[in-house]
């Protein structure tokens, strides 16, 4: 019998009645009329079908009025990549379905319609850990087209796991005259407490602002009080589950959006640091990436074999996540020297994340520089990786690679680091 069938099950003198649910084991899972699910071992259970599955009695979604096309409001595009900012729960079956269409998103978060006229599209529907460089490229082209077609701002909904990487990649690939805002939720959108709606509302507000950069807008604290605006190249997910997981590393956030649930038209954006303004940039797309780059984390006792392996497998560039100021074991130096001589750039970043790489302080560092390792300054390791992909798509000249890697392109390198 298929899930959704209404059945009566007699077992040990007890009668259970309800709807068959999908089960991950051999046990029968039944949703009882009181709403509870129970699991029953099939032994001694007599199952009797009462009603076959009827898709028509599926809970009809309440068609809610959705505000669209209000005059005087800016036009925003929401591009969906798989991170869900809206879900609907069917309490009859307990099924949770993510919502992607513009209508459904607006039905779930009608406040968005008070901020802007929204149009939405699903680019792809994947878990963010399954993201890869070629998807970033497709997304960059879609965003480029939206802006070209007059979008006042673009919102990208994204799973949070790799949102930092995508934000970084988009930062290098698109020079944007309008805000490009990535947003997601740390707590699932099917829970009344989800951060999804507030993040999305704040993202929409930022997408209408004067900002002209690729940014991530997410909860600033555990409270529903404000969202931070993080520069795409400086943001990192720093907590597995909490709302305020996203943090700017080595720089202050660009700004914040104070959230007032009762009137979203009154949300105020406060900028906290320098940023590009709407219209500063001319729209450009540089979507080429050299995907064959790797990020390697050094740990005590790690051998340089991994470098040889990665080069043998055809990688064109390597980012190291070294210790402290940017070190790997002195044993690695001959190997690094050799691959660099063969034209494979090696960029050093720090697993400390906070602070800048400086290989001039200790002997090992000085040896690394002598071997040709490029100091990654205060770039996040992930940002350095994405940037190396982007740089290698433009040049294979080792001096030019070094120059570009150490030149600030999209806010990834901070000249001065304040005491945070």
């Amino acid at each position, binding site marked *: 019998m298929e899930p959704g069938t209404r059945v009566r099950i007699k077992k040990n003198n007890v009668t259970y009645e309800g709807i068959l649910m999908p089960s991950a084991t051999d046990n029968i899972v039944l949703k009882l009329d009181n709403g*509870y699910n129970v699991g029953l071992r099939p032994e001694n259970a007599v199952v009797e079908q009462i009603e076959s599955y009827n898709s028509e009695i599926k809970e009809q979604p309440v068609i809610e009025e959705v505000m669209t096309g209000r005059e005087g409001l800016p036009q925003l595009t929401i591009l969906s990549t798989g991170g869900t900012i809206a879900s609907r729960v069917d309490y009859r079956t*307990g099924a949770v379905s993510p919502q992607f269409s513009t209508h459904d998103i607006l039905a779930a978060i009608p406040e968005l319609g008070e901020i802007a006229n929204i149009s939405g599209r699903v680019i792809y529907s994947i878990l963010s850990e399954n993201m890869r460089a070629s998807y970033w490229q497709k997304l960059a082209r879609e965003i480029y087209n939206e802006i070209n077609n007059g979008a006042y701002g673009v919102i990208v909904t994204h799973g949070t796991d790799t949102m930092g990487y995508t934000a970084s990649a988009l930062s290098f690939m698109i020079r944007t005259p309008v805000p490009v805002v990535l947003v997601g939720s740390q707590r699932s959108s099917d*829970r009344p*407490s989800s951060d999804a709606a507030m993040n999305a509302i704040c993202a929409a507000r930022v997408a209408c602002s004067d900002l002209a950069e690729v940014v991530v807008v997410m909860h600033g604290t555990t409270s529903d009080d404000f969202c931070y605006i993080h520069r795409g190249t400086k943001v990192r997910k720093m907590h597995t589950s909490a709302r305020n997981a996203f943090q700017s590393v080595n720089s202050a956030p660009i700004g914040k959006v104070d959230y007032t649930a009762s009137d979203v038209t009154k949300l105020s954006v406060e900028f906290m640091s320098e940023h590009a303004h709407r219209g500063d940039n001319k729209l450009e797309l540089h979507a080429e990436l050299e995907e064959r780059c790797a990020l390697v984390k050094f740990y005590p006792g790690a051998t340089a074999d991994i470098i040889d392996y990665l080069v043998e497998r055809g990688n064109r560039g390597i980012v190291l996540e070294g210790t402290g100021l940017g070190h790997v074991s002195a044993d690695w130096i001959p190997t690094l020297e050799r691959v660099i001589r063969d034209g494979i750039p090696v960029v050093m970043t720090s697993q400390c994340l906070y602070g800048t790489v400086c290989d001039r302080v200790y002997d090992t560092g000085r040896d690394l520089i002598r071997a040709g390792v490029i100091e990654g300054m205060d770039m996040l390791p992930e940002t350095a990786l994405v940037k190396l992909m982007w740089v290698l798509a433009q040049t294979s000249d080792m001096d030019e690679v070094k120059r570009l890697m150490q030149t600030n392109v999209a806010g990834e390198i901070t000249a001065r680091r304040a005491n945070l």
Partner: protein
Amino acid sequence: MAIDYARVGLRAGLEIHQQLDTGTKLFCKCPTVLRDKKDARYSFIRYLRASKSELGEVDAAARAEARYSRTFIYKAYDTTCLVENDEEPPGELNPEAIDIALEIALMLNMNIVDEIHTMRKIVIDGSNTCGFQRTALIATDGWLTTEEGRVRVDSLCLEEDAAQKIEERADGSVVYSLDRLGIPLVEIGTAPDIRTADQARNVAEQLGMILRSTGKVKRGLGTIRQDINISIDGGARVEIKGVQNLRLIGTIVDNEITRQLKLMELMHELNNRGGRVEHRIVDLSDIFRDTASRVIRRAGGLVYGACLRGFAGILGTELQPGRRFGSELADFAARYGTGLMHTDELPAYGITSAEIARMRSVFGASESDCIVIVAADTRSRAENALNEVLNRAEEAMRGIPKETRRALPNGSSAYMRPLPGAARMYPETDVPPVEIDPLRLKDLSSRLPETFEHRIGRYKRQFGLNDELATKIGRSSNYELFEAIVRAYKVAPTLVARTLTDTMVELTREGVELENLTGQQIHDIFRLLAANEFGKEAIPEILRYIANKPDQTVERAIEELGLRTSMADVERFIEDTVASKRDFIFEKGERAVGPLMGIVMREFRGKVDGKKLNSMLKTKVLELLEANKGD
């Protein structure tokens, strides 16, 4: 007036929420301790969002446009973690809590599911940070027996307790404390098989005893919450929440029956009279411009009113002790923070006859009509409140509304909200289902606390109690005390059982507050009785004394009550008595003991055991007769 429960067709069921005394919470490793709210380490604010259908009737009406809830402020402690904050996925179901729930289910003869599935039940009043309560159905189809018959136990759920509301602020925000959130509790629901008020109390007591017999449930204030649902023929199903005191359950049942019967009477009366609710709200502020009524001036000076045609006297009719039909209507106005006044109770509150007359003339109201008024600071507040009142008044002509009510300390109840619809539930995907190993059940079954039936049989065999007394003490919550005392001291089991049952019931009926007594004090009574420090007849007197002065010792009570008697004194008194009644004794012989016993008992009742006195007296009498024979 005694209620004929069968005639009114009473059907009642109980729902009991009992916190479990586990080491950690249901879904995290935090301790299950309640904290002093002053010790909160930090707080944070949240909103909850829900679709319109989830906001509930009241909220949906009051905030037609809103998708967000009120502002919730949560206080967190060093004994709470990210799980309570809804910042981390819940852990697996606490196995210790599952075991306790299974044990209780087995004691209630329930059928246990093979696999436990945790659900999310939508609750958006802020009492759960996620916006849902996690709950799992553990068992169904059980029963327990009462003297009045069997009561089915429909369901037992294991769920997490909610955060505790500690403040509602003027701006509408609500403050919750997170210490209680996540403490495991079992929710046990009986079928509506209860037929009398006494039975309701018995079921509640028995459930309480079964829960306590596991030794693994929390004790004390707020650890058990009882709801009772009641319906009668022609009435409606009403759920009364938050019954704190077991002894009140019977009163609550009786009061609810009375309320529903009265409401039915009012309905007939209104229909006979041709009552009519006029949905015309009139601004009466002008009439009260210079009023002497401080109630009106303090409320903001605006007064709105409406006319209930043919309702005169109805609002003043008492439905329950301290509650008139007007109080029911006032509950609805209170939801908008306003009071309600009506002409059945006026003139009062400083409102004069002249003002009433002017109101009557505005509405063209006769003496058979009733005018309801609301004083408020804004027009919309007054109108919202009055609309609620008018709707409720109109409903009175149709029948009794199904509703959730709040128990009041005197056993009456006040309106709380409409009966909730079906629970909105969906699976908690973060918590994996737990399959119950049959061996686990077998093991738990073998270690269950003794059943009532077994205990009663054992008391008859072991302590020689008769059937009636064995049943009483066996089902009593004092059974453990009984066994401990009987094992510790040389006292008659029948006396101990009788004291812990009948004597205590009688004293409670008298109004003696026996809850004040500790187990140790009761122990002391029997220890001192066994040591002949006083006579068993004085037990009620000692209990009464200590209940009034709970910090006194039993020794002190004996002293104060003048019960302490030295056996030398007793002996001297008996000797004196015998000496002074010599002639009588010589005349009656051994049969003189009876009448003389009266004199001795008058002196030593309650101080020395009667049997002992009797044997002492007899000895002395025989000695005298013996000595006389020798003469």
